[in-house]
């Protein structure tokens, strides 16, 4: 069953048709990669899913409910979490606090006025956050200010924060952009582990073919705002239309 149904979605910025007529279904418990050359509309599409942009035409259904017109925090509460291209974490806060916030958001919803209670008394939440940090090998850094961590650790923390909310759909926007090879491989392993251990659907936008082919169950190739082909990684590799779209910017260059 498709957990995410994108139907006839179009978005225009002034004279630029960023998204033509996108139809795309993401099946439950799969990893679906969206690839395409620069300017293909990958990020625009993602922004339409999380409420940052509202498409001009079409519909986006998540688990049978429309996400259009909802604010980002509402869409998140429906069960969609997003990892950004550059890790978006609470840089001024400690690693532990970063982890606590999504745990509170999961339990208490978009707002709760718990202004007198002490965080230390919230044993369940603290326990959950500590467990998450342990799973992610970040527990040693719990008191560290998160902005002083390495890029790879920030990425791990951001993914951990998203997972703490038990999302049904995890959206990843170029999760390995600007990473060294070792960090990239660590991230791939982490994502593989998440895919194996959880009931989670992952949609990933990626430039790095190595990442895409190691993870994806299905791949959609986007070019000039419209899906070119959608198929399994093996079929995509040799597909003539894909080669055409990528011609001149070879796989290694990406």
């Amino acid at each position, binding site marked *: 069953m498709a957990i995410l149904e994108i139907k006839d979605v179009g978005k225009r910025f002034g004279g630029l048709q960023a998204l033509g007529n996108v139809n795309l279904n993401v099946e439950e418990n799969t990893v679906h990669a969206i690839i395409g050359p620069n300017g293909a509309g990958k990020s625009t599409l993602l922004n339409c899913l999380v409420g940052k942009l509202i498409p001009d035409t079409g519909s986006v259904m998540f688990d049978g409910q429309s996400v259009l017109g909802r604010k980002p925090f509402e869409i998140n509460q429906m069960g969609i979490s997003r990892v*950004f291209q550059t890790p978006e974490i609470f840089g001024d806060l400690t690693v532990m606090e970063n982890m606590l*916030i999504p745990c509170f958001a999961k339990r208490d919803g978009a707002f709760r006025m718990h202004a007198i209670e002490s965080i230390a008394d919230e044993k369940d939440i603290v326990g959950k956050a500590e467990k998450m940090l342990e799973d992610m090998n970040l527990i040693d850094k719990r008191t560290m200010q998160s902005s002083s961590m390495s890029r790879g650790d920030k990425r791990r923390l951001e993914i951990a924060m998203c997972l703490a*909310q038990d999302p049904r759909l995890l959206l990843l926007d170029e999760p390995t952009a600007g990473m060294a090879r070792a960090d990239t491989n660590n991230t791939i392993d982490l994502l593989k582990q998440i895919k194996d251990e959880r009931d989670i659907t992952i949609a990933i936008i990626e430039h790095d073919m190595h990442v895409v082919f190691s993870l994806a169950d299905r791949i959609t190739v986007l070019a000039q705002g419209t899906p070119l082909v959608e198929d399994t990684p093996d079929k995509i590799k040799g597909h003539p239309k894909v080669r055409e779209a990528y011609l001149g910017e070879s796989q290694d260059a990406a």
Partner: protein
Amino acid sequence: MFGLNKKDGGLLLIVAFLALAAPFILNPFPEGSAMAQFNAGYPDLMQRLVIFGIFAIGFNILFGLTGYLSFGHAAFLGVGSYAAIWMMKLLTMNVIPAIVVSIAIAGLFSLLVGWISLRRSGIYFSILTLAFAQMSYALAYSVLTPITGGETGLQPKYNDPRILDAALEPGQSPRANLFGLDMKASSELEIGNWIFTFNTGYYIAAIVMLLSFYLSIRIFRSPFGMMLRAVKSNQQRMNYTGLNTRPYTLAAFVISGMYAGLAGGLLVAMDTQVGAERMFWTASGEVVLMTILGGAGTLIGPVLGAGFIKYMENIVSKINKSVLEQWFAFMPDGIEDIMITLIYPFVGKGWHLTLGLLFMLVVIFLPGGLVEGGQRIGKAFSRKKASDDTTDATKTPAE
């Protein structure tokens, strides 16, 4: 202690000690000595120190935690003051209803202002709050004169209704009290050449300040407080973590508005009069200075900042030319004149110049305010202890 961890409990105890022993601490110099003018242990000033401490503690909950810089908080202080004085005119000279109503009215007003202003952030938010405050100030001076008394302001009069109080005897003037305890009543203690003044109003204000400070510690350590810091750190991540930032910032805004209203109500309880000038934008700017000077986002910073600025305002501004002449009388005439000419612009009416310079120094060299200064001194000391035999060389890089 009271649900606080050891460190916060200690901090609360220190502040409690400072507040309760203030009549001694602020009066270190014997009466009649040349230094006596640096004594700040008189009721009027001590009351202002703690009341503006409350104002700054509340402001810090908004500015220190969420980073939203309001430039209109004096409006809430002013509204609280007007509400308090009306309670004293209509209901009773007991300060309890005055203070409770001032908090409530300031809370409602800040809900309105916050609801509108928080649609924008950054400089636009600051401008909106400034506009609201200036609007309130202008209205208080003009069309709202029947409520605010315009230029003359308001004070309780002999023939006000005061439905809860017994009628005053002829010639008796209405005095603010707490169930009969006169706010202006003081007792004096003479030890040698020292005179210490214990004022009822001061102690009531100090206890309210301690309660406010305690509440602010609880807020800082609560999940709510953490969310406010998260707003300051990364709103984007907040939104994509399923958290609605607007009610968080609005709640912080209203809480700080209520603190301002409390401060306004207390000002009236101590000194029963109000004028619109306490809503002027410079008054809003003053609380920003207090918070930054002391250390925004720290627990004790705003209290220190408020104390520091109010002390400067009242003490440095009193140093006039004849005082300077006394100080430098031992010097030869020519040098004495030069010294006085050099120092004069910085004291008396020029105290703002001194304050401005100090503020610049703090912002440039101690971005964390006086609290950061204290921490650096503390660190320098502990390092010195750790390596006793090493010379000053180890100390210099720390600066």
